[in-house]
């Protein structure tokens, strides 16, 4: 076992220790006082309107997250292609172009439908 292969275990242990100290210290030292304000619905500063059913969490957050995931997965597919594309030549380019084209149709659709507008 040479030195470079000790790097991972050492960094893992150090990370664990640092995190444990940070969280553990705040747990032990901090006071816990649950009160109604903390348990209420998160509303980014505004006081939650009384009956929860009358105010719904806006769905655009969820839509943004979904769009992010789909395009993130597209990028993930691009990573392995990117490291080998030099030796794949024109065929590799055509293959990735087809992949991106399908998702470009998706992007065009999403754009035109207005899902990228914030309000």
């Amino acid at each position: 076992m040479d030195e470079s292969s000790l790097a991972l275990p050492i960094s893992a242990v150090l990370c664990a220790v640092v995190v444990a100290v940070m969280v553990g210290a705040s747990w032990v030292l901090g006071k816990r006082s649950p009160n109604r304000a903390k348990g209420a619905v998160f509303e980014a500063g505004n006081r939650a309107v009384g009956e929860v059913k009358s105010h719904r969490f806006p769905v655009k957050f969820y839509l943004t997250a979904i769009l992010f995931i789909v395009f993130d997965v597209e990028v993930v597919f691009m990573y392995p292609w990117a490291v080998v594309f030099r030796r794949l030549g024109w065929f590799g380019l055509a293959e990735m172009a087809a992949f991106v084209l399908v998702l470009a149709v998706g992007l065009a659709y999403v754009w035109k439908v207005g899902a990228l507008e914030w309000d």
Partner: protein
Amino acid sequence: MIQVPFGTAEWQSIAPFSLVAIGGMIALLWAVFAEERPGTTSVMWMSQAGLAAGLVATIALLGSEKASFGGTFALDGVSLLANLVFLLSASMTLFMAQGHLESMGVRAREFYPLVLFATAGMMIMGAARDLVILFLGIEVMSLAAYVLAGIHRRDPGSTEAALKYFVLGAFATCFLLYGIAAFYGATGATSYDGIRAGLASAPRAALIGGVALLVVALGFKAAIVPFQAWTPDVYQGAPTAVTALMSVGVKAAAFVGITRLFLDGLGPLHQDWQRIFWVLAVLTMTVGNVFALVQGNVKRMLAYSSIAHAGYLLAGVAVGTSRAGGAVLLYLFTYAFMTLGAFGVLIALGTGEKPNDDLDDLRGLADRRPLLAGAMTIFLLSLTGIPPLAGFVGKFYVVESAVNAGWFWLAILLVLNSAIAAYYYLAVIVAMWMRDPIGDEPAWESRPYLAAALLAATVGTVLVGLFPSGTLDFARHAFASIVR
């Protein structure tokens, strides 16, 4: 430079589903980009054009038999005949949905492209000879189907259907992935050829586990007992045009997938899975028929009846010979016509406010709408299996292949189940022709496309019943090359 395996065989094998998928993409863009908001009719016709392109490709390729992508994607009689079934069900769904969705208040023009994507997924499943490709086909089809089931957003039944279908479907996909992992670990490959090669030296426990997991996953999609619990609620809640697509297209795709996987990829293991399928087939037929007997709502009854038909199909798969495979494919073809027709009639009965699909709503239909009642009678008689209609042909050949292979009990139980099923199908016919109508006549709308689709379904049901041999020979020949 890496040697690239992409030649004529590859282009030909991907042509049908690619054309459908590209058609879907074009229809999608058309639906959002055309200058004024395009009416749904134009989107429907664009989608039909996509399906027509796929049809042309399929017909042009009839008779080919090629292995492509290293044997992981097939181009043979089975995939082409399956494509015809899928394209037929998608096309009829599009015609039947036109007008029906608007009257319910569904404005989403993406319905039509989504049907095309689902169809592309089905076509991928029909030709997949690799577990990963099968999985991707299932996912494309299922994602589109989940959304289609819930497309009527204002209706809680539709939302419930989408949610149930999605949650349980995602769970089934987990089983599928575990099964694929088990087979990969056991045999070192995911392609059917690779699995066959690795079966001899594979650890038995992993194989049995893998088979069990795959049966669960595919059984869910095909609505086989004991994985059928979602079917009645999902079929009843979804808009009826979507139910038609699910009941025919999704089921057919699941069965072609099952048939290819077990008869081709896992053929050497047939001692193991044949007995499982025997038991599941009998259970499925019986449960489907027994529950259908007590339904008061025709749409739900048809859902249970489709479970029963899945049982008959599974019986054919259990027999496992190429004769039986051909019979299964023929059955799917006939089943498509009659089931699409039956659901089409239910669509015709619905108005904007009420779906009118209870048994009481069909009473006296013969007085008010004789043509519709006549078409429904043909479809129901065909579903029962009365000659000379299509349904009889399908069942006959499944029974014949079972007897031919020595599975007498299976054949007997199938026939008995058909007799039980006759009761609830005939109950509807009796209600339509021999009972008086209840209440006022609903304000039915005129829907020409739906009428055309129903006419096509009626003609198909009668013709395939009278002249089955062409399709049968083609199907049997197609299977002969698969079952080794």
